[in-house]
């Protein structure tokens, strides 16, 4: 088997593996559908990445980098973007949690006041 074919096979299996893991997590309700879709798309891109190899080679020649360097750079940028997106999600959740905690506390206080009034 040629190197290119081996590469293509590894990428295909890798992509399918990612897909299988994500589906398993989604079925166990550990991943919301939103993130499942995102990761399935990434898995799909990995699986067919072999077809994009010539494009990567051209980019490498343009930027004076080896194809491997190009791929590493692209992967790093992708992982960075995912990290930032998750940071944004977490920040949003923190704000919503804070609002809910405040509402909960004020509600409990109102209940206490009503109960006091009932007793006197």
């Amino acid at each position, binding site marked *: 088997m040629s190197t290119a074919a081996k590469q293509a096979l590894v990428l295909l299996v890798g992509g399918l593996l990612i897909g299988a893991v994500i589906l398993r997590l989604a079925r166990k309700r550990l991943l919301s559908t*939103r993130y499942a879709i995102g990761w399935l798309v990434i898995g799909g891109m990995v699986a067919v990445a072999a077809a994009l190899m010539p494009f990567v080679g051209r980019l490498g020649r343009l930027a004076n980098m080896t194809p491997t360097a190009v791929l590493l750079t692209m992967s790093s940028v992708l992982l960075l973007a995912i990290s930032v997106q998750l940071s944004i999600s977490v920040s949003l959740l923190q704000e919503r949690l804070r609002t809910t905690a405040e509402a909960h506390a004020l509600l409990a206080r109102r209940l206490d006041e009503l109960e006091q009034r009932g007793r006197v």
Partner: protein
Amino acid sequence: MSGHPSVLVVIPAFNERDCIGGVIDEVRAAGFDCLVVDDGSRDETADIAAAHGAAVVRLPINLGVGGALRTGFRYAHFHGFTTVVQVDADGQHVAEHIDELLTALDDRDLDLVIGSRFAADSTYRMTYVRRLCVRLLSFVIRHSGKADISDPTSGFRAIRSPLLEAFAADFPAHYLGDTFEAVLVAARRGYHVGEIPVGMRDRQGGRPSADLHALVVSMLRACTVLLTGTTFDLPVRPPQVPT
């Protein structure tokens, strides 16, 4: 008191201060108890709703229609209602048709009945793309073999026990989860799902919370849900003991 003591009309509302008063008046005039679930509105929706005589639950954060509805289902279940009628806060649903929904529940022994917008006398207009998406979703449900629903994204529907308790326990909060996905999963789990044609009006004011982009995205997720079978938990319909 209302003429239908075991029926609760649930109206999820997000920034609907222009329409909510009129909707509540119409529902109460039709003789129903009314609960408005304020989905973290930034305007006076909750206050206006209370002033018009509806019971109001104020969510501290915005959960989306599904989240607001599940809150309504939990309220209904806790207070002993056996049937919930979902009515939109934008005035598109006509309160006089609620009786038709309830009659269909009884006559056809249904757990969930949907008021379909595709009726002859409807003045309701829908963009071509939207109509196409709805047709696609309808085809998917029909293809699953469990139910024949031409308008699975309609929010005008009635739900009763035992499906009401099941939804109170778990119900999707994402866009189209509360309409299309809920219908599909309920049908798959053995609940009796049906549909009747009703006329609807155009939105009476305010702004819709979903747009074309959201619709396309949710079509994608609907496909994913079908392919992967990842969806919300719903217990299989328990056998009903005839009384």
